[in-house]
Structures are given as C-alpha cells and as structure tokens.
C-alpha cells in the first residue's frame, strides 16, 4: 500500500517547540513508510490559506497545520476540497467531514512534573516562563502548578510571559529574573528557560519535547506531548472511510499515549517518584483527572 501524502504547514520555523512536535511525528511516520511528508514553514497568516490550497491542488491527501490565526478561512478552504483531510491545531470546532481539529494537551504530564518538582524544591518558589498567555499555554502552567500544590500546598509561583514565541535569550533572562526572586525550579514552556537554570545550577522542566539530552544535569523531567497519537488516529479514520470532522484532542490525553512525563531517575529523589508514578498510573487508568484551567495564570 502506498504511503499517504501528507503536508505540514507551519506558521513558525519548525524549530518552534510546538511545530517541532508535529514535524518530528510526521518525519517518524514517513520513516516508517506510512506517509510521504512535505512541509512549508514560516508561513504568514496572509499566505496560510494559499499554502493550504496549493497543497490540496497538488494532490496532498492530509494537510496538517494550525488554524489559530485563520480559523474561518481554513474552514472555507476545507469546504472547497472535500477529499482532502485537514488536521489543524485549532481553538474552534471541527467542520464538515474533512476538517479535523486538535488542541495541545500535555497538562497531565505537566501535573506529574509538578509533583516531582514540589518534592525537590528547597525554597518552595517555582517559576514558569511562557510565550504569551494563550489558553493552551495557560492550562499547561496551571497543570504544573496543581501538581506542585498537590505535594506542596504552600508553594509560591512566579510567572513571566516574554511576549513572543521566538526569543530564547529573552526566555533565559526571564528565567534568571525568577531565580533572582528565589525560584529554584523552573518550568520552561519556552526554550531558553533551562539555560537560566543551567547557568545558576538549579533544575528545570521542559515542555512538549524532551530537553534532558540538551541540558543534562539541569532538566530532570519533561511534559512530553506526542502528536503522533493524534496523527495516527486521524489517518486511521480516513483510511477506514470515517469522517474526519471531529476533535482529536482526546488522543493527546495520557491514556491514549498522547502525552506523558519523561524524567531522569538519577536526578529525582526516590520518595518523589513513588507518589508521582501512582498518579501517573491512575491517570492512565482513567481514575484521576487533572483539572483544566484556561484562565491566565497570575
């Protein structure tokens, strides 16, 4: 059977952590021979719908990307190409039979990371560095905080938004500012945060992707998000002739394998691991739910 033709349209360069999760998942699927993968990156909002149409015209079967800034237009394009599946990160609803949506839910993993962090901090002050306060960033940071609070109810939380998705040196400065305010564990929604931790010899947590290899000794755990699970689900529905007009966010849940914690055992005290693993199992079994909070953390 020939591989499915898939195109990624990334509005940022694919180094952006979020895009890189889509990108890597699709590269892997391509390596396994399931899909043929092409992509465009750094596509401005004005040009996004054109990129969608051009790929659709080229005969691409599944287009993966982000509709956040082009919700209306993206659905219009989907309407014009009923045979193409559009799998889009979106805050809105699915549309027709071919416009599939997903959100980025790795708050469960963030919760677990928080549980580890809560046990490891001496100062009890925790910093988070985010890009801009959009819902998916907010829920992630709330997830982390809930995890911390679960094991350390008196925790104090700091937050910085750097106002842009792409300024690692600035994320680093934000991290340093938090360390100066007493934080000794940083949750880095943005790359660059861990650099601050590394410089001051404290510990950090990565988000979406695994930063432990990049920052050994510094990043002890990561709230991993696996886009692969969502992609696989959407591809399977398409293959089975089922409608793609659904929300695939749920495949990002831990019980579906869509997000999980990865941590470096040697860096974490044993007494922290045990309760965390218990919760992890509970989440996977559907017995524990991490509350979702979209509001802007303060």
């Amino acid at each position: 059977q020939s591989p499915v033709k898939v195109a990624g349209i990334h509005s940022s360069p694919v180094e952006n952590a979020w895009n890189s999760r889509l990108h890597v998942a699709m590269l892997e699927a391509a390596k396994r021979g399931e899909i043929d993968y092409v992509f465009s990156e750094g596509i401005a909002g004005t040009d996004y719908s054109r990129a969608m149409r051009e790929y659709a015209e080229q005969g691409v079967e599944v287009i993966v990307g982000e509709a956040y800034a082009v919700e209306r237009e993206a659905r219009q394009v989907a309407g014009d190409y009923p045979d193409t599946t559009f799998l889009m990160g979106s805050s809105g609803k699915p549309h027709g039979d071919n416009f599939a949506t997903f959100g980025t839910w790795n708050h469960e993993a963030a919760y677990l990371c928080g549980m580890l962090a809560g046990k490891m901090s001496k100062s009890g002050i925790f910093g988070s560095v985010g890009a801009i306060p959009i819902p998916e960033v907010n829920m992630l940071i709330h997830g982390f905080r809930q995890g911390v609070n679960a094991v350390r109810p008196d925790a104090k939380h700091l937050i910085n938004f750097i106002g842009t998705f792409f300024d690692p040196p600035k994320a680093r400065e934000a991290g340093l500012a938090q360390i100066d305010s007493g934080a000794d564990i940083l949750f880095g929604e943005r790359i660059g945060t861990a650099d601050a931790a590394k410089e001051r010899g404290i510990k950090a947590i990565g988000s979406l992707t695994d930063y432990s290899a990049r920052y050994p000794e510094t990043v002890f755990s990561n709230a991993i998000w696996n886009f692969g699970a969502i992609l696989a689900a959407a591809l399977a529905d398409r293959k089975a002739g089922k409608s793609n007009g659904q929300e695939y966010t749920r495949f990002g849940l831990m019980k579906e394998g869509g997000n999980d914690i990865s941590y470096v055992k040697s860096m974490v005290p044993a007494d922290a691991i045990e309760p965390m693993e218990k919760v992890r199992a509970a989440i996977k079994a559907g017995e524990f739910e991490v509350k979702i909070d979209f509001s802007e953390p303060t």
Partner: protein
Amino acid sequence: MTDIIDILFTVGLWSSVLRIATPLIFGTLGALLCERAGVLNLGIEGIMTFGAMIGWLAVFQGADLWTGLLVAALCGALFGLLHASLTVTLGLSQHVTGLGITLFASSFSYYIFRIAIPAQNTPPTVEPFQSLDIPFLSDLAFVGPALFTQTAPTYLAIFVALIMAYLLARTPLGLAIRITGENPHAAEAQGVDPIRVRYGSVIVGSALMAVGGAFLTLSAFNSFFPTMMQGRGWICIALVVFSTWKPSRAILGAVLFALFDAYQLRLQNVLGQAVPYQIFLMMPYLLSILALVIMSRSARVPQALMQPYRKGER
C-alpha cells in the same frame, strides 16, 4: 512598593543588564559609525541576524568561538560592502536600500541555515562563551558579581566603544569620518576621499553589527533560531539618536534600555500579571521617543546624513 525598588539592588539584575546590553552596544556602535560618516544603515536588523546565524554555524562546524565572531564580522563587512556600493557609489536612497538589505540578509540567513541544518526537533547547540572573571574586580562585593562576571565579548563591546570614542574624538581618521558626515565636500576639499571614508565606515560598522548578532548565539544563547533577532537592530537605530552620536553614550543608552528590559521581567514577578506585560515592553520604545524629544535641541545630527555624495556633482 519597596520590592519594586529593591529589585534595583540585586546582583542578578545588573549582570543581566550588561548581558542584554551587549548586542545592543555592538549594534549601536556599528550604526553610529555608519551615521557619523553620513550613511544611515537600516540593514542592521538583517545584518545582525546574519551574524547570529553564520557565527553560530561556523562554530557548529568546528571553528572556535573567536573564529565564529570573526566569520560573523567578515560576513557583516560583506553586507556593509553591498550597502555602501548601493548607497555611496550609486547614491540610492539609504533607508530603502537598508530595508532591502534587512529583508535580504534575514531571509538569506534562514535559507542558508535550513540548508545547512535540515529541520529537526530543537536546533543543535554549541558550547558558548563562558563568563570570564577579571582578577580583583570580580571579587568586589556586589559590583564584582554584578558587573564583572560577563563573557569576553561583553568586555570587548565596552572596549570597542572606548576605542571608537577615542578614534572619533582624537585621531585624524576620526576627524575624517566626522567631517565626511558633516560635509563630504569639505572632506574632499582637504584631500580626504569621502567615498573611501564612507565605504570604510559602513563596512566596519556593519561588521560590528554582525558581531552583536553573533553574541546572541555564541554567548547569550547557544543555538540559532530563525526570527530570533526580534527587533534588536531597530532598537540600535534609536539608541544612536538617543546617544547623540557619541560612542560613550551608546553604552549608556544600551544599558538603560537593557535595564528596562531586565527590570520589567523582574517586576512581573513582583506585581504578577496585574498590568498587561505589553505595557512594560512598550516602555523602552516610548522612553526613547521621549528622550529624543527632550534632547532634540541639543542633538547634533550629522549634517550630511542620508545625503548621497557624488564626485563632480553639485
């Protein structure tokens, strides 16, 4: 309330300030040198981006860090040569050419980067400059850790600023540069070739800009990301005016700007998100405009800035 003021007396704030200021100092000095010779170089944003990319790429390919900076400087010089050819020799409009070069240099650096480093998860890293302690100075209380635990390029930036201040004020070459920026005909009449002076200034100035960019990827951070320059170059253009075209004040301007940035990040931790973070980010720009208004009377713009000079044309 006291928290807000206390921040000013933390070591971390001040060591951040110098680090944030360093690329701005390089960029501002570069733009300042060009403008002192009468050439506005709006290519700065792109040239800094290219410097950030190529310096990092060189180190990633095995060069040592100083070679990386040198490669960045050389490439910056090449863009300077391009800008000078277009604006000095051909006399094309300086700001339009500059914007064109910014578009070219930045998109070109993303393109090269993507070809050299195929898209992957997170970009690879290099081992950046380590902070360099200065004997005695670094051991001082407060001042030591606040100011003297920087990486070598930061000290270099300050050194370059002092050199440039001396050069402009006290040497025949500096005088030649200044008079070219004031009235190229006067330079020519004294046997100083304004075209060569402008070429030289734009080339060296652009090299400095590129070094400023490379600082971001070789010292402040350790990888290159497309679009990571985030308007730092434009800030330098403002800082040149803010510093009334004086290198020593360029340090001051850059530090003030960096102070704002570092301060607002810390203020967020004290005040929380009660005030939209955008307000803080706006402050440096608004204050620069305010400073321009206040200083406008005393600022002496190089009189021939943006005026092309063609030999034998009146």
